[in-house]
């Protein structure tokens, strides 16, 4: 008999495709909001239709529609078991003597009453086994972030304090964070001297070794001499902090690789680049620029480079040939695979005016009318079993004519049938053949651009990847199929991709 039951043991590991969906969606919605006044108009005009599909905009927003339309299925996924070990081993052998410089730390979402911050250092580094407190003598700045010329927060709660992870930095290990119980690594970001983001690894993309050591990879060893900054975002959760509940500590560490620096990390935060587009969207003559396009309508390529590959692309000769593996490419089941149901695309079914109007009204209701209703009825017997969708449906029907209701029902039924047809098609032989054909087509197209790739079936899975070689220059100007396809590219060594 089991001693304890962990629900998470019964949930599959969060797939990479899910993370990509999150990042792509975040990137799209944030860019859409920022882009211009035109974006506001679009947002107002094109309310999203919550139908369960990844694509939720009307024909009036072709760009965003395309972005969302690209289904969230990552085609080529490779298990990364053992890669963390490889990365760590690599780091140990390839270490370069480096020194710490300055940085800053910030803490957000502090627990209100359970802990206090003091100008003390409990976040420390291990250099050759010795603890180093590099950032003493800092002063907290005003909100929104507590920024300082130094690292370290002290939390009075001894239980929490004793569990703050140590950040280890030494010649043999470029950068690692030893996590303790209750802590998790959310994100690791590496900035160059200009404080521009050159690598960003989040969530489960962060390699893990022996269950407790996270390693940024050997990226730092591949960098040319200069000053770099590493930001490690860790968070801690405990029931002690039921109000703030989560402490997120963002530790910015200056790491002068081969060139000791005393330069403080700039306070200014760069614009978030949710999907790193380090090379393909920029001029080859300006490889240091990593800023994403300012406007959502500007061309941009959705490419994620592994950190090690990013480092090589920045330092290697343009003609150098690298072994690469494209482990994920996204596709659209309508445009790329040609899925149609009774001659119509899913988008056409979804954007049927009667259905779109219904879901637009639902959105409005859910965020304006419903919260008050929910608040009033909380605690009423049986309320927990209520279905907001059913409540809205009754609300909506009371306010519409029989003809409008019939039009909606017909559109909803047709859309439901189309979605279920797609669901079945995904698992059918025809669907799988279509995926393979698309990937072969993509492989051929890249080879026509000078790449030397072949489509490889990942052993014991239904997945594929593209393995082969390409020059640094070809990778810098990666010829994405169009602006809405998403690629995940990594180095390839010893018959397996190095996924970081």
């Amino acid at each position: 008999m089991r001693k304890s039951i962990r629900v998470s043991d019964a949930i599959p590991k969060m797939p990479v495709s899910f993370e990509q969906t999150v990042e792509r969606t975040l990137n799209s919605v944030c860019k859409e909001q920022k882009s211009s006044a035109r974006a506001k108009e679009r947002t107002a005009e094109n309310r999203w239709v919550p139908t369960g599909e990844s694509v939720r905009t009307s024909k009036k927003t072709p760009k965003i529609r395309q972005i969302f339309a690209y289904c969230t299925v990552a085609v080529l996924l490779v298990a990364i078991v053992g890669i963390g070990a490889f990365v760590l081993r690599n780091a140990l052998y390839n270490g370069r003597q480096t020194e710490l410089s300055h940085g800053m730390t910030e803490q957000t979402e502090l627990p209100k009453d359970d802990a206090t911050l003091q100008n003390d250092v409990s976040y420390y580094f291990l250099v050759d086994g010795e603890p180093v407190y590099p950032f003493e003598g800092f002063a907290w700045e005003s909100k929104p972030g507590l920024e300082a010329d130094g690292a370290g927060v002290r939390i009075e709660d001894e239980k929490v304090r004793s569990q703050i992870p140590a950040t280890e930095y030494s010649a043999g290990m470029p950068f690692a964070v030893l996590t303790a119980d209750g802590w998790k690594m959310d994100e690791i970001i590496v900035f160059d001297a200009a404080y521009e983001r050159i690598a960003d690894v989040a969530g489960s993309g962060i390699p893990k070794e022996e269950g407790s050591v996270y390693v940024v990879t050997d990226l730092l060893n591949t960098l040319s001499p200069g000053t770099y900054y590493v930001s490690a975002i860790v968070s801690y959760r405990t029931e002690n902090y039921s109000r703030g509940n989560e402490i997120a500590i963002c530790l910015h560490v200056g790491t002068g690789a081969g060139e000791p620096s005393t330069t403080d990390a700039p306070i200014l935060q760069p614009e978030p680049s949710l999907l790193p587009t380090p090379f393909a969207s920029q001029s080859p003559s300006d490889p240091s620029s990593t800023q994403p396009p300012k406007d959502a309508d500007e061309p941009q390529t959705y490419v994620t480079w592994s950190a090690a590959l990013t480092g090589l692309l920045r330092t290697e000769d343009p003609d150098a040939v690298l072994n690469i593996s494209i482990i994920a490419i996204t596709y659209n089941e309508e445009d790329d695979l040609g899925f149609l149901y009774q001659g119509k695309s899913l988008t056409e079914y979804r954007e049927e005016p009667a259905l779109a109007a219904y879901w637009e009204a639902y959105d409005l209701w859910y965020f304006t009318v419903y919260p008050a209703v929910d608040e009033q009825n909380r605690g009423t017997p049986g309320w927990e079993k209520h279905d907001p969708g059913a409540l809205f449906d009754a609300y909506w029907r009371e306010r519409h004519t029989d003809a409008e209701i019939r039009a909606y029902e017909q559109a909803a039924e047709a859309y439901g049938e189309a979605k279920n047809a797609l669901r079945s098609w995904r698992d059918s032989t025809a669907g799988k053949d279509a995926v393979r054909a698309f990937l072969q087509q993509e492989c051929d197209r890249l080879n026509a651009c000078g790449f030397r790739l072949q489509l490889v079936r990942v052993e014991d899975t239904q997945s594929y990847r593209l393995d082969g070689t390409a020059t640094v220059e070809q990778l810098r100007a990666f010829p994405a199929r169009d602006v809405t396809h998403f690629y995940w590219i990594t180095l390839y060594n010893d018959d397996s991709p190095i996924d970081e």
Partner: protein
Amino acid sequence: MATIHDDVFVSEIRSVKRTAFGVAFLILKNTYDCEDAMSAAIVKAYEHRGTVKQRASFRAWFLRILRNEAYTILRERRKVFETDEIPEALTPFPDPAQSLDLRAALMRIPEEQRNALYLQQEGYSMEEIADVLHVPVGTVKSRISRAKQALRKILEEDDNA
């Protein structure tokens, strides 16, 4: 708060995504639909981020939206075919040796119970879970208790069998 800055929004979503996957999976049981629900929930949350009262409540607010999206997808799916079967997972389990049994057992108890238990084990407070599930705190506690009892019973029966 008046509105949530993009950076904060992104950070909050990233911090909750793993739990979000679990919440969606416990309802939808397949990763394709989880991705759809998550994408939909992010878009909706972003559009309405100004309605969050305070940042501390963002996670629960977002998970409530996600859960609603998951049920929307479930309703649409059931319009055409009803099924109680447990689809095969598309990705590996943390511990394949025992998780299939555990998963089968989990799917035999009500979704409200399994998600309450899951969120508790993920470190969510009773108040947050209550907010996600639209129930009073007392109900959350009783659901978690019932979930544990039911799971133990199911697994013990399986072990004996």
